[in-house]
C-alpha cells in the first residue's frame, strides 16, 4: 500500500519533522473541539445568531409586512412594555399559573415517584410505564383529547363528578376554572419529573433509612429528615425546569383557545402574547422586546432559586 501523508496545520510548538507532538492534554482538547465543532457551529448559527438578531430587532419597530419602514427606536419598545395591558396580563396569568401549577406538579411527581418506588407496590414497573406513557403523546393531540374530556356537555370528567352529585364547572370557558383545567392537563404529563425523582430516590443510601428506623424514626420523619434533604438537588432541578417551562407555556393555551387567550385573556400567557405580537400582529420588534423581558425575568428568578439553594440544598459531595 502506498504511503500517503496528510498535511494537518502545524500548531505552534509542533516538531520540525512535521509530526505533531502534542501533549495528551492538548491533543485531547484538539479532538474534543473537532467533535463538538458541529454543535458549536449550530449553536452559533441557530442560537447565538437569533439571540443577537432579536436583541437588535427589539431596538427597532420592525414589522414583518412593512420591512422597508424599519427604524431604530432605541428603548421605546421596552418603555411600551410597562404600559401594555396585554403584557401585564400575560405576566399576571403566567405567574398565577406558576403559583398554582408548579407546587402541585412538584408534589404530584414526587408523590408518584414515592409510590412507584415503594417495594410494597405490586407491578411497579407497569405503573412506572403507565405514569410515563402520556409523555409520548404529542402535546397538541393530548390537549385536544383533554378539551373533549373537560367539555361540560359530553366530557367524562363532569359526568364522573355528576355520579357523585357534584355539578362540574365550565372548565375551559371560565376564568376561575381554566387554571385548574390546565394544571390537570399538566399533571397528565409528569412522567419526566417522576422519572427524575425516582432516580433521586433510588440514589438515597438505604443504610440511612435503616439507621433512622433503628433510632425510632417514623415514615414521616424519615421522609422529612432524610428523603427530602437528600433529594433537594433533584427537587431544585425540577423546580428550575418547571419555572422555565411555565414561563414558556404556550401549546396547551394556544390549542385550547385558538391562540386567543380566552376566556377574557385568562389564558393569555406571556409566551402566547409574544407569539401574537410577532406572528399575528406582525410587531416583530416589539415581540423581540417581550422575548428579552421574558428572558430577564426567568434569569432573575433562576438566580434567586440558586441563591436560595445555597442554604437549603444539600449536596452530598459538596456544592456542585
Amino acid at each position, binding site marked *: 500500500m502506498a*504511503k*500517503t*501523508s*496528510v498535511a*494537518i496545520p502545524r500548531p505552534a510548538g509542533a516538531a520540525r519533522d512535521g*509530526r505533531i507532538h502534542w501533549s495528551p492534554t492538548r491533543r485531547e482538547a484538539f*479532538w474534543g473541539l*473537532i*467533535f463538538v*465543532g*458541529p454543535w458549536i*457551529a*449550530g449553536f452559533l*448559527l441557530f442560537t447565538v445568531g437569533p439571540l443577537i438578531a432579536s436583541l437588535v430587532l427589539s431596538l427597532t419597530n420592525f414589522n*414583518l*409586512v*412593512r*420591512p422597508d419602514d424599519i427604524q431604530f427606536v432605541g428603548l421605546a419598545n421596552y418603555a*411600551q412594555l410597562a404600559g401594555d*395591558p396585554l403584557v401585564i396580563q400575560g405576566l399576571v396569568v403566567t405567574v398565577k399559573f406558576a403559583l398554582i401549577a408548579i407546587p402541585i406538579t412538584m408534589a404530584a411527581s414526587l408523590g408518584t415517584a414515592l409510590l412507584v418506588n415503594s417495594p410494597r407496590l405490586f407491578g411497579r414497573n407497569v405503573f412506572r410505564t403507565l405514569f410515563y406513557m402520556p409523555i409520548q403523546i404529542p402535546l397538541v393531540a393530548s390537549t385536544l383529547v383533554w*378539551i*373533549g374530556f373537560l*367539555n*361540560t*356537555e*359530553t366530557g367524562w370528567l363532569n359526568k364522573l363528578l355528576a355520579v357523585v352529585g357534584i355539578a362540574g364547572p*365550565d372548565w*375551559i*370557558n*371560565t376564568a376561575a376554572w381554566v387554571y385548574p383545567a390546565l394544571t390537570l392537563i399538566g399533571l397528565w404529563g409528569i412522567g419526566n419529573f417522576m422519572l427524575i425523582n425516582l432516580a433521586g430516590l433510588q440514589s438515597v443510601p438505604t443504610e440511612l433509612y435503616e439507621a433512622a428506623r433503628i433510632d425510632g424514626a417514623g415514615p414521616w420523619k424519615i421522609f422529612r429528615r432524610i428523603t427530602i434533604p437528600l433529594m433537594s438537588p433533584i427537587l431544585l432541578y425540577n423546580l428550575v425546569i418547571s419555572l422555565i417551562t411555565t414561563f414558556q407555556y404556550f401549546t396547551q393555551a394556544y390549542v385550547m383557545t*385558538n391562540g*386567543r*387567550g*380566552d*376566556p*377574557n*385573556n385568562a389564558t393569555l400567557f406571556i409566551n402566547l402574547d409574544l407569539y*401574537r405580537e410577532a*406572528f*399575528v*400582529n*406582525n410587531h416583530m420588534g416589539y415581540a423581540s422586546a417581550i422575548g428579552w423581558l421574558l428572558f430577564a425575568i426567568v434569569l432573575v428568578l433562576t438566580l434567586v432559586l440558586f441563591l436560595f439553594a445555597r442554604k437549603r440544598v444539600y449536596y452530598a459531595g459538596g456544592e456542585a
Partner: protein
Amino acid sequence: MVLRNWRALGTLMAAVMLIAVACSPAPSTAPTQGAAASSGPAASFVQITPEPIAAGPGPNGGTVVRWFIGLGAGTQPAQIAGEQAFAAAYNGSQKDVYLSLEIVDNTQASNILKTELASGTAPDIIGPVGVEGLNLFADQLLDLKSLIASTGYTSTGVDPALVDFFNSLGQDGATVGLPFAVYPSYIFYNQDLFDEAGLAYPPTKVGDMYEGKPWDLEALRGLAMKLTVDKNGKDATEAGFDAENIVQWGFDAQYMDNYNARAESAWFGAGSFLDADGKTAVIPDYVATSAKWWNAGVWTDHFIPTANQVASDLLGAGSEFASGNLAIDEAHTWFTCCVTPPAPKKPFKFGFAVQPTVNGKITSPLHADTFSILKTTKVPDAAFTALQAMVASGDLLTTYGAMPADTTKQQAWFDSISANFPGLTLDWDVAKAMLAYPDIPNHQSWVPDYAKVRSAMQAFGNAYRTTSGLDIDAELAKLKETLQGIFDAAQ
C-alpha cells in the same frame, strides 16, 4: 503514523460532513426555484410543473409575473390543476406576460408571504384572497386606480354597487382588487327540523311576512326558541323546558371567525369602528343590540348553543349545521361547502331564507375574493394585464367554486352548486336578493392594526358568548378603550 494520519483525515472529513449536514436545508419536495421563491420554507411549496420562475423572460418570451397562491382557496389538488390549466392557456395565448405559479400550503401561506416581504422577494400577484386576508397586508397592496385609469379597465357585468364595494376595501380608499367573487349571507335552515316541528319555512323574498308578522329579529328569536328542544321533547318556549339537557338548538352563525363580534354583529347593521377623523374609536349602536341579543340567546333563551355545546358531539364538534341538530344558521354562500353531514348520517333537506330585518333594515354581510398586486412589484403593468385576465376567467371561478361578481356568470355557478344536492330545489333568488344589501363599510374592512382589532373583537365576542349575565355596556366601554389604545399606537 500513516495510519494515524488517515484516521485524522477521516475524522476531519466526518466532522466537516456533520457540519455540512447540520447546516444544509432540509430535503425539499419543491422543484428548483428561483432565488426569490426559494426563500420560503421549501417543504411548504407545492410541487408543480412548470417550475416557478422568479425573473427574466418566461418560456413564451413574456415578462414574468409571479402569482402567489395559498392565502385563501387554490391549494386543493383539483384547484391546482385548474390554476395550472389557466396559466398554461394564458401563457400560450400571448407573448407579453408569463404567469408563474407559486403554490404554498394554506396554513403557512401568510407566514411565507411575510417572510418574502421581509426579505424583499415578494411575488407580484396574490390571491385568491378574502377581504380579511387582504387587510393583513393592507399597506403592501398596490392601489390599482392609476392602472385602471390608464388602461380604461371596466368591470363588465358587475353591479355598480359591488364595484363600489370592492373599491371600498383598501386602506385609505385604495382600490386593491378587481371584482371577482362575492358571497352574500342569508339564512340556511334545516327543512327536516321545521317539518318535524310543524313550522312554516322562513321567507324567501324581501318584505314577505312570517306567519303574518314582520320577518325581523324578534320573529327569528321566537322561531329559534320553538326549534330548541330538550331531551324530553319540550321546546324553549314551553314551561318545564330543561335548559341543562338540550338536544337540538334553534340558531347559530357557524364559522363566524371565532366569535368575532365584528362579524357576528354585521347582520345587525353596518358601520365603522373608526371615526371620520381616522383616529377616534367608535362603537356603532347596532353592536350593543347584537351583543345583548347573542348573550340572551345563549344564556336566557337558550336557542343559541354555548361554546361547550358547540364543541360537543351533539353539534358535530363545531360542524353545527351538518350535525342535523341546528335548525337555523346564518351563513355566507360558501357555506354550501359544509352542510352535508358526514357518513353514515344521511343528508337532510335544507333551504335558504332572506336575512331578517333589524330596526326595519336588512343587512347582508358580504364576503368577497379577489386578486391583488403587491406594491413591491417591479412589473406593475404586466401584473395588471395578467390580473385582468384572471378576474375575467370563468374557468378560475369554477376552479375555486366561487360565486361570480359578474351577474352574467352567476347562473352557471348556481347550477353547479345545485348539482351537489340532487333532489333539493335551492332558491338562489335569495342569494341574488341579498347582494342588494351588502354591509358597507364591510365587517372586514380595513382599520389601523387590523389584526389587533380582530383579536379585541374576538375577545369581546367570546365574553358575551361564554358569560351569563355579562354587563354588555361595561364590556363595550372597555372595548372602546381597547380599540382607542390600538388606534393610538398605530398612529
